[in-house]
């Protein structure tokens, strides 16, 4: 498998990178971790005229918590950085659980969080967690920066809201209102498999009351499914068998799966319901222990 020819730039600043993208009017693609793009180049599904490799923009290699609890993930933060991060281990359970389930351990050393969000694979993990956490993407264009709410960012299969001359430089996850709890479950047939179905849940709790509820799904629709509205039935409630059941039902309805060799639409919908129930019940149990 051999990629077709392309021109290559490796800028060291964001401004440079954006300028190159701007000059090339949509014919240049950004290369970050490359764990999705390079295989596509090898299979020649993608044959861009130019690659803009951002791996030399060291300023983008970070993830950190602001004093107010806002989590900022730079465009060069690798999956592995989050998998072994002390920062998010306790503060962001949804991300922490997803981190270990992205692709496989070797891919995780190279692939980037922001890159896979931008890739917008309907079966991708990170886009789902970002939607559940109501995150934002910071895009840098020729005329400065803008922030795009995650719910508007994934616009279709493998398609995002970035303009051709914009570079996603950072992912922003707002601080929890109260205590952040949540989880990520993924049905994969083996490590590195794409999700048959996966569920990201992120709740903010005030005592035992849910103050904010976020949820998103991967693998069960033409694009990452935003189930925030569905799970909002939990807001203002405590986690009881009844409220959990209701939420799981609502989220399952939000799924839009297709029958394929991974399973029937009904099966995938059922898995979504099961996973939501498991995540929420798990939270309820640990909250009781804590109390």
């Amino acid at each position, binding site marked *: *498998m*051999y*990629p*077709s*020819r*392309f*021109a*290559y730039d*490796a800028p060291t600043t964001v401004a440079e990178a954006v300028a190159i993208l701007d000059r090339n009017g949509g014919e240049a693609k950004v*290369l970050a971790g*490359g*764990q999705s793009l*390079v*295989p596509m*180049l*090898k*299979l020649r599904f993608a044959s861009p005229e130019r*690659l803009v*490799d951002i*791996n030399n923009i060291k300023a983008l290699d970070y993830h950190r918590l602001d004093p107010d609890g806002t989590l900022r993930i730079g465009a060069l933060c690798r999956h*592995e950085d989050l998998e072994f991060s002390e920062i998010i281990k306790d503060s962001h359970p949804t991300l922490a659980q997803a981190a270990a389930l992205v*692709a*496989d*351990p*070797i*891919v995780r*050393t*190279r692939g980037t969080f922001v890159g896979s969000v931008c890739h917008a694979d309907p079966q991708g993990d990170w886009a789902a967690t970002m939607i559940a956490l109501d995150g934002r993407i910071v895009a840098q264009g020729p005329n400065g920066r803008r922030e795009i709410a995650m719910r508007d960012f994934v616009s279709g299969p493998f398609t995002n809201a970035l303009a051709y001359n914009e570079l996603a430089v950072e992912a922003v996850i707002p601080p929890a209102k109260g205590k952040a709890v949540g989880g990520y479950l993924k049905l994969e047939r083996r*490590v*590195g498999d794409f999700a048959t179905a996966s569920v990201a849940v992120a709740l903010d709790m005030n005592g035992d009351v849910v103050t904010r509820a976020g949820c998103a799904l991967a693998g069960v629709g033409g694009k990452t499914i935003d189930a925030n509205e569905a799970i909002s039935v939990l807001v203002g409630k405590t986690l009881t068998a009844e409220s959990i059941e209701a939420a799981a039902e609502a989220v399952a309805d939000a799924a839009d799966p297709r029958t394929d060799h991974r399973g029937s639409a009904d099966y995938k919908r059922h898995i979504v319901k099961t996973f939501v129930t498991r995540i929420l019940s798990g939270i309820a149990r640990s909250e009781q222990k804590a109390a």
Partner: protein
Amino acid sequence: MTSLYEEVPAEVPANVPTRRVTVTVNGEKRTVDVEPRLLLAHMLRQALQLTGTHTGCDTTNCGACTVLFDGRPIKSCTMLAVQADGHDVETVEGLATASELHPIQEGFKQEHGLQCGYCTPGMMMASKALLERNPNPTEDEIRWALSGNLCRCTGYQNIVKSVMWAAEKMRAEGAE
């Protein structure tokens, strides 16, 4: 990969930009002119003749091409050679010294951790990265860390034992 000793195509297309990259491979600086599209695995195998790094799949699943890039394991078939410019790459050929094998190499031989040998270099490089981060891994931690590398022959059980064997020896050596 033009060299005084290599023929280049009669008409080199004008639009083929090659780049000079210098990579420290197994501690030695190596300089090659490459096309941007050349994969790192192919540069190692063809230009540098380090054929211990194998390519087993097209889709970044099998891990046979795993090498250490600045100390971290990466799949060298999913990285461009140009991206290695100025970086450190360690391949299976760099494991043993002239006089002795690396404990991981010994472990794989002692515990019969290989059969056809095709996945072995990748397995050993991934194992090395694991043991550097976690000198005393459990069986599960080993299985998890190697889950990006496929083996068709051994059934993994002996590979896990091999890594255990190496870990023990490395701890003992460290203790000395």
